[in-house]
C-alpha cells in the first residue's frame, strides 16, 4: 500500500503545494473515505520523497503566525508520477480484464 500512497501524495502535490494534514483531508475526501490511512505514516513517506528529491519542503507561516511545513513537487517527482501512473493504469486494466469488469462489444 505504501507505493499507492506515494502515488496519491505526488498526485495531490502536482496540483498545489500542501501540508501534511491538508493531504490527509484531501485523500479522505477524494477517495470518499475509502482510504483512511494511519495519519502518522504519511510523514515517513513525505520525508522519504523529499530525501529522494521528488518533493521539496518549505516553511510558511500560518495566520496565527506559526510556521507550517509545506511540500512542493519537483520535476523529478512529476516524472516519477507519470511513470508510476502508467504502470498503475496498465496494472488496473489488466486486473479489470481478468475480473471481466470491462467488456467491449464487437
Amino acid at each position, binding site marked *: 500500500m505504501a507505493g499507492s500512497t506515494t502515488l496519491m501524495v505526488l498526485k495531490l502535490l502536482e496540483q498545489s503545494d500542501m*501540508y*501534511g*494534514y491538508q493531504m*490527509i483531508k484531501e485523500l479522505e475526501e477524494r477517495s470518499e473515505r475509502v482510504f483512511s490511512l*494511519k*495519519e*502518522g*505514516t504519511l*510523514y*515517513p513517506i513525505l*520525508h*522519504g520523497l523529499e*530525501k529522494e528529491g521528488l518533493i*521539496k*519542503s*518549505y*516553511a510558511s*507561516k500560518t495566520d496565527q503566525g*506559526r*510556521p*507550517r*511545513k509545506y511540500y512542493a513537487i519537483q520535476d523529478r517527482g512529476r516524472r516519477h508520477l507519470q511513470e508510476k501512473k502508467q504502470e498503475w493504469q496498465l496494472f488496473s486494466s489488466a486486473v479489470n480484464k481478468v475480473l471481466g469488469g470491462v467488456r467491449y462489444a464487437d
Partner: protein
Amino acid sequence: MQTRNSFIQCVVCQIRFKIARSVVANELEDHLEQRTREFLEQGLNPQEAEEKAVACMGDPVEVGISLNKIHRPKAEWTIILPVLLLTVIGLAVLFMSSAIGADNAASRYLAKDILVILAGGVLAYGIYRYDYSRLKNHPWALFIAAPAILIAMQLFGTPYNGVKVMALPFEAGILKPDHLSSLIFILAYQGFILKYRNQSLVGLLKIGLVSALSLMVLMAYPSFSSLLITLMTYMVLLTVAILKRQFSVRRWPCFVLVYGSVILVLGMMLMTLAPYRLERLGGLFRPSSDSPRNYTAAIIERLLSGSKPFGASTFISSDGFSTLPGSHSEFAFTTILATMGWVAGIVVCLVIGFFLLRMGIKTVGLKSDAGFLMALSMFTLLGAKFIVSLLGGTGMLGGALTGMPFVSYGLTDYLIHMAAMGLFLSVLRTDGYLAEEDFKPAASELFKLEDGKLIIDLGLGRRKGSSS
C-alpha cells in the same frame, strides 16, 4: 491513552539523529493540533478530542522507526575521500622533496606532519559536529576577534619572514595568525550579510565598510595572500547575495558601485603600497621573454623544463633540485610536476576538480540561506587557494602566494583548511533541520521615478517601521 506530547516524544525518541527531532516534532504537533480542533468542532470534549486525534496517527514507535531510517546524516564520501587523497599526495610531496634534497629537514618533519594530519582530522570532526549556524549571530564578536589575534601576535609573537607568528612549544610548528584572521573575517562577513540584507543600500554600505576595515587590517599585518583570498571570498558572497536579491536594490547599479570601488581601492593600494606586486602580476599577462622574470619564476621554469610524464624532470636528474625561496609548502605543485611528472600533476588537478565540483553541486542544492552562504564561503576559500596555488606552482604568478589546501604541509594551513571542510560538512549535515528566519526582501527599489521626481529610497523609513 496517550496524550499529544507523549505521542510526539515516543516518535522522536526513535530518531537517533537529534537535530532532526525538533523538525519532526513541530510537524506532528501542527498536525495533531488541527486534528484535535476538528474533533472539538464536532462536539467532543478536549480530552476526548486529543485522544482521538492521537489514535488516528497510528503506532508512534512504528512511525518513529520509519523516520529514523530516513533521517540519518550521510557520510559525504565524495567530499571526504578527495581530501584524504590530497593529504596522502601531500605526504608524498614531503617525502619527495626530502629525497631529492630540496628540503633536507623535510624527513624530520614527517612524524610531526602525521600528528598535524591527525589534529586536522579531529578539528574537522569537532567542527562538523558543531552547529555552525550559531556563528552568524555574533558577527561583531568575530569581527573584533580577527584583528585582536593579529595585534596579540604583533605584541607577543616571534619574528618569521618579516611578520610575527606564534611559535608552538617543542618546535611543533608555527601558527600564522593572518590565515586564521582571514577565516574569522569571512565567518563574520556572512553574519553581516544576513544581518544587513534587509536594509537595501544602507546595508550594502555597512557591509562595504566592514569589508574595507577588515582588508585594511590584513594589509597592515601585512599579508597580501590573505588579503587577496579574503577579498575574493567577500566578492563572491556579495555578488551572489545581490544576484539572489537578498538586498532590495537595483542589481546592476549596485554591481558597478561594488566592483568599481573595489577595483579603484585595490589599484590605488597596489600602486602606492606595493608596486612590485604589479610587476609580478604583469608577468601573468606577459609571459613572453621581455617580461620581468623574478628569481622564483626562473627557478620554477628551470625545474619544470624537461618534465616527464612520470618521474623526475631531466633538469633535476642532471642538475639536482634548486632551492626555491620561502616555504616549500607553497610550491607543492611545482614539486609534484618536477619530481613525479606531469601525469601526477594532471591527477592532482583532476582530484581537485572533482572535489570542487562536488562542493559546488552540494552548495547549489542547499536549502538554508545561512547554510548556503557558509558553504559558498568555504567553497570559494578553498577554490581560490587551489587555483592560486596551481597557477603559482607553474610560475604563472611570478611566485607562490599560497599553499595548496590539504597538500601543502604546514600546521596553520592544514588546520584551517580542515576547519573549512568541517564547516562545509556541518552545513550539509544540518541543512533543512535548523530553524531559519523568514526572509522576504522588501520590494522596493533604490531609484524610482514618480511624477517626474527621482526618488532615492535608502530603506531607512522601512527599517524604522519594521523595528517599531
